[in-house]
């Protein structure tokens, strides 16, 4: 194991064992130059190191609670038989173990969300790729950027990227549509997936916020004081996502207001009439405005 030559001698008053050596000494870990550290602390009684040692001791006392948690926590025994059956099943079928969960007594639980199943970055990358392909195709064909009919889908034999111009459209209307700048007001929407709803999670997605800034949300739940969620990070695409666990319909917010301060100019967006599963909270008129 490579030693760190900076700490070979502690006799020089300018040299002290670094914090990692002090912590290793404190925690009784194997340490090269242990005798030098001991001499520096116990014999030379370096005040600086003793002070640091005391700080590390305090943190360690707190963290030692983690070790005590084990004795309080007990978990239901994994069914050895079922786990073993699952092991064999996974091996025999040479398929991912997670898909072999249809055994009679396999521990079933709702998955946390689709996030566990789908790589979000991959989905995001795919979306960007498709958008770029659309743009390139539109540019090459010199046509509108509206690629799909409103009712969705494509006709047999129709290329998925075929530009479809509605019969009533004229080139003038189309040009107008293209040059009209897209409205990029910050806005929020409920974006709970079915999996989220099953887990009683209300997820709010914000878009068009100033990227890399922080957003503050004011959450109004009927009959309660406003709750402030601060420092919600906005990603580089101007989006954020945040979720609540909703114990009952009484916890569904009536209004959510997002505030973002950019160049001292406050930006806000409101989300009203929030529905969540079977809960729908009508926003009082006074709060909505």
């Amino acid at each position, binding site marked *: 194991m490579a030693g760190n030559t900076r700490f070979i001698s502690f006799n020089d008053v300018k040299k002290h064992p670094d914090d990692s050596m002090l912590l290793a000494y404190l925690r009784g870990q194997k340490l090269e130059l242990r005798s030098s550290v001991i001499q520096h602390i116990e014999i030379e009684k370096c005040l600086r190191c003793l002070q640091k040692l005391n700080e590390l001791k305090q943190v360690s006392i707190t963290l030692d609670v983690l070790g005590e948690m084990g004795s309080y*926590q007990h978990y239901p025994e994994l069914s050895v038989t079922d786990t073993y059956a699952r*092991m064999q099943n996974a091996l025999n079928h040479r398929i991912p173990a997670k898909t072999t969960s249809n055994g009679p007594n396999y521990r079933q639980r709702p998955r946390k969300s689709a996030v566990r199943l789908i790589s979000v970055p991959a989905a995001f990358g795919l979306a960007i790729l498709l958008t770029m392909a659309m743009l390139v195709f539109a540019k090459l064909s010199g046509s509108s950027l509206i690629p799909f009919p409103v009712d969705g889908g494509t006709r047999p034999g129709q290329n998925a990227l075929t530009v479809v111009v509605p019969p009533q459209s004229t080139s003038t209307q189309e040009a107008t549509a293209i040059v009209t700048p897209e409205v990029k007001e910050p806005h929020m929407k409920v974006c709970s997936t079915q999996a989220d709803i099953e887990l009683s999670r209300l997820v709010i997605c914000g878009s068009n916020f100033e990227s890399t800034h922080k957003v503050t949300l004011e959450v109004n739940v009927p009959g309660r004081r406003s709750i402030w969620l601060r420092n919600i990070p906005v990603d580089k695409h101007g989006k954020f996502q945040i979720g609540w666990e909703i114990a009952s319909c009484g916890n569904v917010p009536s209004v959510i207001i997002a505030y973002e301060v950019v160049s001292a100019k406050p930006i806000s967006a409101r989300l009203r009439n929030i529905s969540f599963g079977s809960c729908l909270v009508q926003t009082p008129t006074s709060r909505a405005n």
Partner: protein
Amino acid sequence: MVTDVQGVERLRERDAQAFRSLIDRLQQPITGYLHRLVGDREVALDLAQDTFVQVYKEIDKTSGEFALDAWIYRIATNYGLRYLKRQRLRQFVRLDSRESFDESLAVAGPEDQTETRILIEQALGTMRPIDAAVLQLHYGNGFTYEEIGQVMEMSSEAVRKRVTRSVEKFRRVYGKKIPSVRSQRYENSIKVKATSKGIK
């Protein structure tokens, strides 16, 4: 940490009894470790089961003498870190802390330690998962730096430095958390469950 040569051989031969013994011996500590790491009891139970299935699938790819327990903890750690990485893409906070505050980490143990445990878990939850894992292994499972090195595939010296950096980070985060979290409890407001790093 156990290095049982005969046991490993029996596992490689897919001896059912050896696997049963392995699960009996390691299920509680592995689940406890994962529970503290990911902060969700149900997820921890599931990841523990995934860990043992992975052990079964991969054991025959190992060779010679090796630290069985460290290898299993490495698999569990990888599952835990992967889960946390995905979870970090979302940020969940809970409303109405009085209804949701009795988390699985808070129900057991001496009453006066309950809040400390919650604060510790919250502080660890805001740290990098790898740093939190190192602290969990050392302070939670009592692993030495050498053993953590086997789990994380690092030198003892690298572990020593990482543990220290993690302790310093924890100290800073925990120091900030105490007043804010206590005030949140008494104001019956919000518990931040997951990392505040948000969408990256």
